[in-house]
């Protein structure tokens, strides 16, 4: 059986340098365009809190359940949840189903089933994620699911709730 790999994200180590976003966009889009990165770093105005956010994946896969297009979003052989661009209608149901906001829908001409828009999410770069390679403080690691498990998703969710509270106080 193939070992499922997950991204183990440690928000407290993140420095907010955004190299993950930069390289993610470069490798997937062939140019530097962080807006289309499959990972994004959330934070407050003073960067007391920083949270790199990407698909772990979580194990429950509400995105797969929510998708109305057969086969448009699925688990690949390595355990990564991937979107098949040609089948995606950009309906946004997966993005709404994801609790941590790891999927984003972008209006992009020529992309997706309708040629107008597409949902983008982490595909783990086929098993060797660039964000892991470039993250200077090693805030993002890739490891077998059995090591970190569901805990990563729940930790991120909790951190995001703390961030939301902090922002509302600002």
């Amino acid at each position, binding site marked *: 059986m193939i070992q499922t790999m997950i991204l183990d994200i440690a928000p407290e180590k993140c420095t907010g340098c955004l190299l993950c976003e930069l*390289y993610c966009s*470069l490798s997937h889009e062939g140019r530097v365009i962080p807006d289309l990165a499959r990972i994004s770093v959330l934070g407050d105005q003073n*960067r007391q809190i920083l949270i790199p956010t990407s698909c772990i994946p979580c194990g429950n896969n509400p995105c797969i359940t929510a998708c109305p297009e057969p086969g448009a979003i699925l688990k690949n052989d390595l355990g990564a949840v991937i979107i098949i661009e040609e089948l995606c209608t950009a309906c946004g149901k997966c993005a709404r189903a994801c609790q941590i906001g790891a999927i984003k829908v972008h209006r992009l001409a020529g992309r997706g089933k309708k040629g107008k828009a597409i949902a983008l999410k982490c595909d783990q770069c086929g098993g060797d994620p660039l964000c892991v390679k*470039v993250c200077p403080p090693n805030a993002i690691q890739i490891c077998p699911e059995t090591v970190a498990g569901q805990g990563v998703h729940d930790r991120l969710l909790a951190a995001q709730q703390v961030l939301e509270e902090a922002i509302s106080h600002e």
Partner: protein
Amino acid sequence: MSEYPYAGYAGQYLRVDLTKGNIQKLPIPLDWVENYLGGNGIGVKILWDEVPANIQPLDPENKLIIATGPLCGLPIPNTGRLEFIAKSPLTGIYGDSNAGGHFGPELKFAGYDLIVFEGQAPEPVYLSIHDDRVELHPAKHLWGRDTFTTEALLQQEHQDPNLRVACIGPAGEHLVRYASIQVTYRRSAARSGMGAVMGAKQLKAVAVRGTGGIRLAEPVKMQALALKLHQRIRTNPFYRSVHTYGTPGLVALMQPIGRFPTQNFRYGSFDGFEDISGEALREQHLLRDTACYSCPIGCDKVYTVTDGEYAGTLNSSVEYETLNALGARLCVRQLDAVLKANERCDALGLDTISAGGAIAFAMELAEKGILGPAEMDGLDLRWGDARTLITLLERIAARQGFLGDLLAEGTARAAHWLGRGSERYAMHVKGQDIPAQDGRAQQSMGLAHVTSSRGADHLKAFPVLDETGAIEEAVRRYGDKYLPDLVNPLATQYKAFLVKDCEDYAAIVDSSGNCKSGGTFVMAEIYWQDQAEAIRLATGMEMSVSRLCQTGERIYNLMRCYNALHGITCEDDTLPWRFTQIPSPSGNARGSICHLEIMLPEYYRLRGWDARTGLPTQRTLARLGLEAAHSRLRAAVASGASKAAYEQLGWSPPYVGPTKDAL
């Protein structure tokens, strides 16, 4: 718009006429990028072409240029840098200021390499940029607000927490001549008073959000080069300490060599240095490590004060310069008070270096009896008084009282106006306050202060090789033929060569959009060869090392020519008496003075500048493709225009002697 011939650049820029409220989107002239790269290079080219010598820095006719470079935003290490360029209100000559953070790349993602602001808005405004949508908005509700509040209000107004902001605080609004521009996240473009230029133009802020991308000429090769450079920096032997302490780590290194200016540069070591060291800062105040855009080092940090009189203080990017300027230079040893003062400078929008310099100047005038009790506005100007420091910062930013208004002019102008022998305590070169180095303890730095194109400054040359003797780095750059003198801080041999080479390379870095504190000067894993390669892969421009060297020289010479239009000559290439007449009393530098008389002639020779005038010769300028600059300069000197401009600068050269007041 058709595709720009060079990748790496956005290819267009904004020209904003604040008087008329008119915004133009224009293609970047090819001459700008091919001969001046970007950043400072294009900045000085625009000043040279568009802002004549008779224009005063606070006039509507001065221009403020916000410029990125071809590497800004790209995957190589530390590409968050951007430049602000204008005629400086502090010095009256070429001025610029650089900041890290996240604004520069965002401007390129929005589709612009630079913005040129001209004119003066009839009432306060700010500029918002959301990709193609570029608008001026009223900023009355922001006027008077500090920089943190301004940024937060703009993010709320545009409902976008990722909006990147460059703004001024009350100091810029009140035209304090060393007002800074603060950039998301809490980074400062502080030297040369660029904030006062924004204030004079009634431009409170620029807010930018870009969702576009930057095209690369060779994306696959670029990615491979960038990963290699990241790896080299992360395995550099100094990586761990630079990451851990940032520039504050220098405090403990500069103290023993007598290069930690204390009490307005009287001494080069400070009794209380351990209280304000990088180690103390990290141990007592670190909240978390943070970084500028694409930086693997992360010398930026968030520091907090959680108890005592200054509880609630929050800082990021506390620098060596600030610990010295607001600490040792004033004999203040309470770290929490220095952090509070730093936070107030960032909130008010003040350069910590010049603010500290001005307050040290006032404290020394009080000590010498030059300032009378009635002129102290009820303040206790004793050395080391932290409360006076914090109160004075507020008053300077508001130009409140005699002292606040006087010191808001900057040390050099204040001394020029006040007279009474105060000139000898104004520690400046060409109107710019001297930063936290001492040419007696590091000869190359003394020369660098003097030859810097924006007045006394360490970053125009940043000759770090002889600070504490970086032998391996010296060998890697130049081989071993200049050792041991090149890395000996007290030796003068080869220092002119070092300063010239570093100035040319720094001009390239400041025009490209990467960072001198991480990867190009400190831990110089990216030097001429890699920089040329990175520019080539990013832009597709034919870029050899020799072409890059020549571009650096061209930029630096044009800055010198611009200053010469304002009457600057070798007469201004001088340090205050403390550095050239009084032997250092401190550390390894004890007994040493700065030997400009040895280094300067050699520097002029290497630059191809006339030894009698200190100005670039016709031959030098012709070699750099600047023939027209030579004729313009010659005409300005012949007509007396440059002399007339010099008389408008508002400061006198530093006092050089006699030295009957030792120490």
